[in-house]
């Protein structure tokens, strides 16, 4: 099948040149090893944002309370054992490093943590007014306490009765209860069917800090095996998503890169039968990769782990150029001559690929911009190295064994048939779009790199727990934290009205924990002096069976409260409330925002209108879902615009390089056909196109143009035509293999890009082969 003409390429050039090249490579590798800072924050794959709402969305997604919450579910044991496991694990998590707090719905837990509320009840309770401590009001309160004592339910309130006969602590708790929590069994949160217990934990690490989140997950797993061996543990939440996605992508990227590198190596060895030739092919690729990484580091200050993972895609493309040169050179032909001969085609192929990655580099997603810069610089360096370094190293082209390739019998009929299939594909895809199924993915969450299995688990657990996604809230702005809180407090009557109108089920105002300073001072000023209170209490107690000194602790607490300073954020340090406040009171661009989440929203549009009517208020209704959809749309529009610009540059390049409209058409037609067919197949397969698919389609365009250019170059005779065919077969096989391996990944991003490019490369190759002039010659292939 293969026959060697020459045993090995001659080392006529001094080995010194190889030494220089390898030394340069080592220096680059060392520089990369020293300077590269690998970043794992998944926030890099969120879009850059312009409006306040968008920045709020991103900050919420990255660091907000929602993003830090980990939902822990235990199942696989009986109810009693699960309740015990829930208590044990919660206890351990509350002392664990990496967690702000954990709660399982238990009242005791809450009361322990709520000591700060008990201490500050007179500043926090909305029921505190001067009237509250007059003899008639006290009398009514005491009678209520007597009834409580006699009732079996009173036991729960007994502990604080002597300190708090007017029930301010309970009033504070009612304020804080925003509803919507799951059912309690055995005193802890259970799913409705009683088969699963829930614990909510707030991690210290931000949601997108995938490393910190992975550490937190390990902590939970370890503690759970200690606390409840044999019980099933499920973890979910934005942080868990980030950690899992990272683990998966790193694992897949490593494995799949190894697979594709191995495959390409085997392919090269089979094609060249010479380790030196394989080394020569690898050199431009290695230079391109290292230069690309270093440039990304220089431009962005760090390289994202995902960018490194995607380096494999660069491998698949860059390897085409040295292959094209080496396989196109006639045996014994000076390599510099061959490089000159194909120079123009090579330059066009490189430049068009660089232009196709331009849209990526300009993307609002920092992660994608990194990929774009990596691709552009990597391809450019690999192209330059192919054109100049290889001929410098090797004087004569190596002898390439001849391979018998299946002849592409490009009968004119096949050409027309393929065109007809293309038209049909496009027509069918257009029809599905017109039939109302939009082709675009509009959910920002769907761009999450988390595996779909985990997203399903999350949805199931959330539904089970009765906890909807926190999506709608009111943001109250102010110049200071105090001003923002005062604004949040000011809109409460409006929220109450919405509640009584059943527009919302509940709201969770940060002003409940931190009423405005004036409000607190007014309440504290309403407290009577000890002597007055004692006298009034004596009047109120007359005729009741209480001991005269029963409520001394009450009088003492009120006296203490009178001297208290108002509650501040610092009062809650070290408690779950502190963590909650940090999430609900945030500083953004020099102004403060107090966030009041709304739950059970029936009609967002109606609320938005009602909020609008308030006019002039410093509070705004924020619907994260709507903002994120609009953002995704905006980014897609940007991406489309940038793609259009890239296409325009490509056309200009081709027009300048080929200097013939007919040739431009011959080159662009197969690539455009391949692109359109790929997009049509994806749409017909029911895939919603996301930004990641756009990226992949851009790569397809780059690859497709390369093929079309290589095919289009007018060959001189059957010999060269055979070599072209071989070089294309090798290039296509390496690309399809690289991306084919990537499509096997269970990480959605890798799968989407891998499958799209592999399919696209195959289709582009097919159209190029069928439609190009060199393929329509039916003379015998190289044998």
């Amino acid at each position, binding site marked *: 099948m293969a026959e060697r003409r020459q045993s090995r390429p001659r080392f006529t050039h001094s080995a010194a040149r190889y030494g220089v090249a390898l030394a340069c490579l080592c220096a680059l590798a060392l520089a990369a090893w020293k300077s590269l800072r690998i970043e794992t924050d998944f926030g890099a794959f969120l879009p850059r944002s312009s409006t306040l709402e968008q920045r709020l969305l991103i900050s919420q997604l990255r660091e907000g309370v929602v993003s830090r919450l980990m939902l822990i579910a235990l199942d696989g044991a009986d109810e009693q054992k699960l309740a015990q496991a829930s*208590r044990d694990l919660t206890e351990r998590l509350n002392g664990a490093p990496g967690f702000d707090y954990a709660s399982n719905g*238990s*009242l*005791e837990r809450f009361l322990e943590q709520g000591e700060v509320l008990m201490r500050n009840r007179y500043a926090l309770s909305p029921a505190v007014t001067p009237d509250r401590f007059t003899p008639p009001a006290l009398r009514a309160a005491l009678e209520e306490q*007597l*009834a409580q*004592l*006699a*009732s*079996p*339910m009173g*036991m*729960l309130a*007994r*502990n604080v*009765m*002597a300190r708090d006969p007017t029930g301010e602590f309970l009033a504070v708790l009612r304020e804080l209860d925003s509803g919507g929590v799951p*059912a*309690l*069994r*055995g*005193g802890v949160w*259970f799913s409705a069917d009683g088969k699963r217990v829930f614990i909510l934990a707030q991690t210290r690490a931000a949601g997108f800090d995938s490393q910190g989140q992975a550490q937190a997950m390990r902590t939970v797993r370890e503690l759970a095996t200690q606390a409840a061996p044999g019980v099933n543990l499920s973890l979910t939440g934005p942080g868990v998503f980030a950690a899992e996605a990272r683990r998966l992508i790193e694992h897949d990227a490593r494995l799949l890169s190894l697979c594709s590198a191995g495959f390409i190596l085997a392919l090269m060895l089979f094609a060249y039968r010479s380790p030196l030739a394989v080394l020569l092919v690898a050199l431009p690729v290695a230079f391109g990769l290292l230069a690309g990484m270093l440039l990304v580091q220089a431009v962005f200050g760090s390289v994202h782990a995902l960018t490194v993972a995607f380096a494999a895609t660069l491998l698949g493309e860059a390897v085409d150029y040295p292959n094209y040169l080496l396989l196109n050179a006639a045996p014994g032909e000076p390599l510099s001559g061959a490089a000159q001969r194909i120079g123009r085609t090579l330059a066009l192929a490189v430049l068009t690929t660089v232009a196709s990655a331009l849209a990526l580099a300009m993307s609002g997603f920092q992660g994608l911009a990194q990929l774009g810069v990596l691709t552009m610089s990597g391809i450019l360096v690999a192209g330059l190295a192919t054109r100049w370094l290889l001929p410098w190293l090797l004087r004569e082209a190596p002898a390439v064994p001849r391979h018998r390739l299946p002849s592409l019998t490009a009968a004119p009929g096949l050409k027309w048939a393929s065109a007809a299939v293309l038209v049909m594909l496009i027509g069918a895809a257009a029809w599905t779009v017109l039939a109302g199924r939009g082709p675009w993915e509009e959910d920002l969450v769907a761009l999450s790199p988390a595996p779909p299995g985990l997203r399903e688990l999350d949805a199931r657990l959330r539904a089970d727990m009765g906890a909807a996604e926190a999506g709608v809230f009111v943001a109250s702005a102010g110049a200071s934290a105090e001003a923002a809180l005062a604004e949040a407090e000011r809109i409460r009557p409006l929220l109450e009205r919405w509640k009584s109108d059943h527009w919302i089920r509940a709201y969770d105002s940060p002003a409940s924990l931190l009423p405005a300073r004036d409000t607190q001072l007014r309440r504290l000023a309403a407290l009577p002096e000890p002597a007055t209170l004692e006298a009034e209490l004596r009047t109120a107690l007359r005729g009741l*069976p*209480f*001991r*005269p000194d*029963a*409520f001394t602790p009450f009088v003492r607490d009120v006296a203490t409260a009178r001297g208290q300073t108002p509650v501040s954020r610092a009062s809650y340090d070290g408690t779950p409330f502190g963590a909650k406040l940090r999430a609900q009171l945030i500083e953004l661009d020099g102004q403060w925002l107090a966030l009041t989440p709304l739950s059970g929203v029936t009609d967002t549009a109606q609320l938005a209108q009602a909020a609008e009517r308030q006019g002039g208020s410093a509070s705004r209704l924020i619907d994260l879902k709507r903002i994120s959809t609009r953002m995704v749309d905006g980014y897609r529009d940007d991406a489309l615009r940038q793609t259009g610009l890239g296409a325009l540059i490509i056309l200009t390049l081709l027009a300048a390089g080929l200097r013939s409209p007919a040739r431009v058409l011959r080159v662009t037609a197969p690539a455009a056909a391949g692109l359109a067919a790929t997009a049509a197949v994806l749409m017909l397969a029911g895939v919603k196109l996301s930004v990641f698919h756009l990226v992949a389609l851009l790569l397809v365009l780059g690859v497709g143009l390369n093929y079309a250019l290589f095919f289009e170059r007018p060959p001189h005779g059957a010999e060269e035509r055979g070599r072209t065919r071989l070089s294309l077969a090798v290039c296509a096989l390496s690309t399809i293999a690289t991306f084919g391996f990537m499509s096997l990944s269970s990480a959605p991003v890798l799968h989407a890009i891998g499958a799209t490019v592999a399919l696209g490369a195959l289709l582009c190759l097919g159209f190029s082969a069928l439609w190009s002039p060199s393929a329509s010659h039916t003379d015998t292939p190289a044998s």
Partner: protein
Amino acid sequence: MPDYFMRGWRTAAVLLLWTVCAPVHAQAWDVDRLMQQLAGIPEGQVNYTERKYSALLSKPAVSSGVLSFHRPDSVEKEMRTPNKERYAIAGDEVVVARNGAERRYALASQPALAALAASLRGVLLGDQALLRRYFKMELQGDERAWRLALEPLDASVARYVTRVSVTGSAGRIQSIDTEEASGDHSLLQVQ
């Protein structure tokens, strides 16, 4: 000294006799037998008086009303004086009616609530399995005058209730004394 010795010896002897005789004597007085008797009494209602003793009170707070129970699992405590209040335990919830408003609580939501309901239901309806789920049981006395002490198994119950002592004669309950962790206790007497 000898007195102690004698008493100890007598107890040991009684215990020994009891152990030896128990298997022979099928009708021995034990928890099983008590529960059988309690389970055998017909459904109905009784009047009660309850005295609440508390460190906050100079004299016990007295209330009274009607206690009714129906198989399989419903118990209702209706207070008539000094206030009108009603606590109805049925299924897995308790319905509290006071001050003209009705509120429902899931028994399972708080272990102490579930345990209290279990003590009432278990004793009034003779449901041994229910009692064992929440309490350690100790029976003293004989069939004519027995005393059943229930001690909560779970720490989250013991935070509120430390012991429930029930006295009675054969299948008739005389009093239920609930001791709280606060030192308060309430003695419910059946008339």
